[in-house]
C-alpha cells in the first residue's frame, strides 16, 4: 500500500490536534465539533402504524476523530446517520455541520453538500453494476462536474481515481466490474469513491457488516489509517462491540435514544 499520497484524501487545511481526546464523557469543546445534532426525532409511517425511530437524539462528532454509533437492529443508528448525511430530513431537531445548519437547506444545497463535503460508505457497497471500478470511483466527480467541465479536467480526475484505487489496494483491478470483485474489494472501491471529492467527513454505515471477520478487519484498518494518517473525520455505524471499542468515541443508541457516550483514550 502506497503512503506517498499524504494529501491525497483531503485538501490541505488547518488541522489542529484533536483537543477533545481524553476528556470526560459528555464534555466536548465547541471549536472542534464538526457535525452535531440536537434533539432529533424521526418517525416512519408504515400504513397507519407510526414507528418512532429517533426520540430526541443529541449527537456530536469531533473533527479528525473516529466516532462509532453502536446499537441493535432498530435502534435508529442508520436513521441517525442518514439524517447526519442529509439523506433524510428529521421530523424535528437540527443538524449542524461546521456551525452551519444543514438539515433545512434547499434540496440543491443538500445535494451539493453530499457531493462536495460528504463521503458515504454502505454495508452493501452500492457500487453501480454497469460501471467499472474506476468509473464507480469517478462517479462523485462526474456528478459534480458538467460535461464540458469534466472534459477539461478529466485526465486529472482519472489519475486521482486511479491513485485512490491504488491507495485502497486495488491498483490492479481498476477496469473490473463490481460483479468481478470480491466483497472486500467492492468495499475498498466504495471507500475510494467516498474519498473522490476530497470530503471533510466520512459516514460509514456498517462497512464491515457484510464481510467475513478477516476482510472486515482489513476494511477497518483502512478506515483507521485514513483517520490517523489523513486526519479524516469518520462516523461509523456498527453493531459490533469490538469494532466500536477501537473507535475514539462511541455513542450507544437504544430504542431511539442515546443510552451512553463513551470516550476512549486515543
Amino acid at each position: 500500500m502506497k503512503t506517498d499520497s499524504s494529501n491525497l484524501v483531503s485538501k490541505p487545511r488547518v488541522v489542529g490536534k484533536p483537543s477533545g481526546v481524553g476528556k470526560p464523557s459528555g464534555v466536548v469543546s465547541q471549536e472542534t465539533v464538526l457535525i452535531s445534532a440536537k434533539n432529533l426525532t424521526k418517525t416512519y409511517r408504515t400504513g397507519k402504524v407510526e414507528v418512532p425511530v429517533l426520540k430526541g437524539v443529541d449527537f456530536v462528532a469531533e473533527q479528525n476523530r473516529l466516532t462509532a454509533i453502536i446499537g441493535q437492529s432498530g435502534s435508529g443508528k442508520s436513521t441517525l446517520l442518514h439524517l447526519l448525511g442529509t439523506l433524510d430530513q428529521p421530523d424535528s431537531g437540527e443538524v449542524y455541520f461546521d456551525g452551519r445548519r444543514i438539515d433545512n437547506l434547499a434540496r440543491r444545497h443538500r445535494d451539493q453538500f453530499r457531493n462536495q463535503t460528504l463521503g458515504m460508505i454502505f454495508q452493501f457497497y452500492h457500487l453501480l453494476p454497469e460501471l467499472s471500478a474506476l468509473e464507480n470511483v469517478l462517479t462523485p466527480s462526474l456528478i459534480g462536474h458538467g460535461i464540458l467541465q469534466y472534459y477539461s479536467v478529466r485526465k486529472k480526475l482519472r489519475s486521482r481515481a486511479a491513485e485512490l484505487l491504488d491507495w485502497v489496494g486495488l491498483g490492479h483491478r481498476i477496469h473490473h466490474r463490481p460483479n468481478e470483485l470480491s466483497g472486500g474489494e467492492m468495499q475498498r472501491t466504495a471507500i475510494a469513491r467516498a474519498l473522490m471529492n476530497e470530503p471533510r467527513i466520512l459516514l460509514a454505515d456498517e462497512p464491515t457488516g457484510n464481510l467475513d471477520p478477516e476482510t472486515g478487519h482489513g476494511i477497518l484498518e483502512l478506515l483507521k489509517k485514513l483517520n490517523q494518517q489523513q486526519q479524516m473525520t469518520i462516523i461509523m455505524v456498527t453493531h459490533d462491540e469490538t469494532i466500536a471499542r477501537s473507535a475514539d468515541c462511541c455513542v450507544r443508541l437504544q430504542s431511539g435514544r442515546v443510552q451512553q457516550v463513551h470516550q476512549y483514550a486515543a
Partner: protein
Amino acid sequence: MYRWLLCWRYLRTRWIALASVVSVTLGVATLVIVNSVMDGFSAEMQQKMHGILSDIIIEGHSAGGIPNPEWYESEIRQALGDEVVGVTTVVHVPAMGSFQFRGQTITRQINIIGIDTETYAEVSDFRRFLLHPENQRLLSFQLHETGYGEGRDDFPESGWGHRRRWAVIQKAIEQERQLREAYEAKLRQSNSPGLPSLRSDVAALANAPPSIGAQATAGPSIGAPVGNNQLFDAEKEQHAGIVLGIGICSVRGTKPDGTLTDYFYVRPGDDIQVGLLSASSPPRILSEKFTIVDLYESKMSEYDSTFAFVPIEKLQQMRGMIDPSTGLKSVSSIQIKLRENADLDAARDILQSKFPSDMMIQVSTWKDLQGPLLAAVKMETTILNILLFLIIAVAGFGILATFFMIVVEKTRDIGVLKSLGAPSSGVASIFLGYGLLLGAVGSGVGTIGGLLFVNYINEIADLLEVITGGEVFDPKIYYFERIPTIVDPMSIVMVMLGAILIAVMASVLPALRAARLRPVESLRYE
C-alpha cells in the same frame, strides 16, 4: 456527465429495453415503407394522368362546343404570354363502339376524342402510349403495313396484312349472302305460278353451291359494297382512322401456365362501327365505320378502356361542328400546356377571370379534374400515417412499462446516485436520455430497415410470391407492372422525430418516478 455515461451503459447492457423498442422499429419501418410506396404510387399515377391530360383544360358545356377556338387561343397566348408551350383543340363526345367477333356483336361505351395530331402532341404525352413505333413519332391515322406491338410476344398480327385477309373473308361472306339471296329469290319466283321457265336456272345455281374457300381464293377483285359507299374496297382502303384504348378491344386473362396475356377482339386493321350524337339540336344519332389504326395503352385502366382518338376534322364534320356559311369550326375543349414548373392554379385563375363561367365555359387544371382520385390517395396516406403512429404510440406504452421495471430494478442505484449528491433532475434526465437513445436506436434501425425494404420491395414481392404461391402485387389490378416507390427525406425525418418523441414521452413518467425516489427508502436493505 454521469447521466450520459449511465444512459449509454444501460443501453448497452439492457437487452430487454431494446426488445421494447422493436415495435418502434417495426412501426417506423412500416411508416417508411408505406409512405414511400404511397408516394411512388400517387406520383406514378399523377404522371400518367398528367401525361394524357394537359395542364389546363377549357371545356365548353354546350353541345355545339366552343365556337371559334382561334380567338380563344390568341386570347390565351396574350393572357399567359411565355408560359404557354402549346395549345390544342379537342372535340370529345361519348359514343358507342361495336365490332364483330366470331359472328357476335360486341358493344362498348367509349369516349371519342377528336384531336389535331400535331398540336395535341405538344400538350400531351399520349403518343408514347401508342403501340406502333412510327405513330409514337407522328400519329398519321393511316394504317401501317405491320410493326404493331413490337416487343410484345402475344400481340396478334395486325396492319394491312391482317386487313387484307380479313377483307377477303368479308367479301366471301358477302358473296355467299348475295348468292343465297338470289337463290332464295329464284326459289320464290319458281314457286309462284306463271313463271315455270326459271326452274332450270335454279337447278343451275344448285349445281354450283357457293363455297367460302373457293370464293376467297377467287381473288379480291370483286368490290364488296360497304355502307353507302359502293366503291369501297376493304383490301386497299381504310375508313377514317381511329386509335382505340387497349382495354376497349381486349380482355386481360391468365393463360393455363399462369402468365398474363391479352385476348384481342379486334386489332389494328379491323373496322369498328361508331355511333355518336350530332352537335345539332335536337341531337341525332350518327353512325359510321372507322378503321383501327393503332391501340393505346397508358396502363391507366380508366383511360385505356374508354378513350378512342380520331382526327378532329373528321369528328367536326360528322357532328356538324363546322358552320356551313362561315366555315368556322367549333371544339369541345381547348387544352393548354404550360412551361415546366408554371403555377397552374394562377394560370387557371387568370383564364377564369377572362372566360367567366356564364359563357358556359369551365377552366380547370388537370389536378382539378382528377381531384377526387388524388384526394382519395392523399386521404389514404394520411389515415395510414395516423394508424401507424398509433402503433408506435402503443410501442410507447411498452417502453413505459419496461422503463418502470427498470426504475424499480435500479431503485438502489438511484439511491446511491442521490446519496452521492446527484440532483433529482439529473436522475430524471438519465431515464429521459435513456428513452431518447432507445427511440433514436429504434427509429434509426427502423428507418434503415424500411429503406432497405423499399429498395428491394419488388424482389421481396417476388420472393413472397414464390413462397406463398399467390400473387402479391397483381399487375392486372394496378396501373403498373412493378411497385413504384419514392423516398421523401422530409417525411422520413418527420417519422423519425415523431417516433423519438413518443419514446421520450413514454420515459417521462418513469423518469419522474425515479426522480421522486427518496434516497433513504431506496437504500434500505432490511
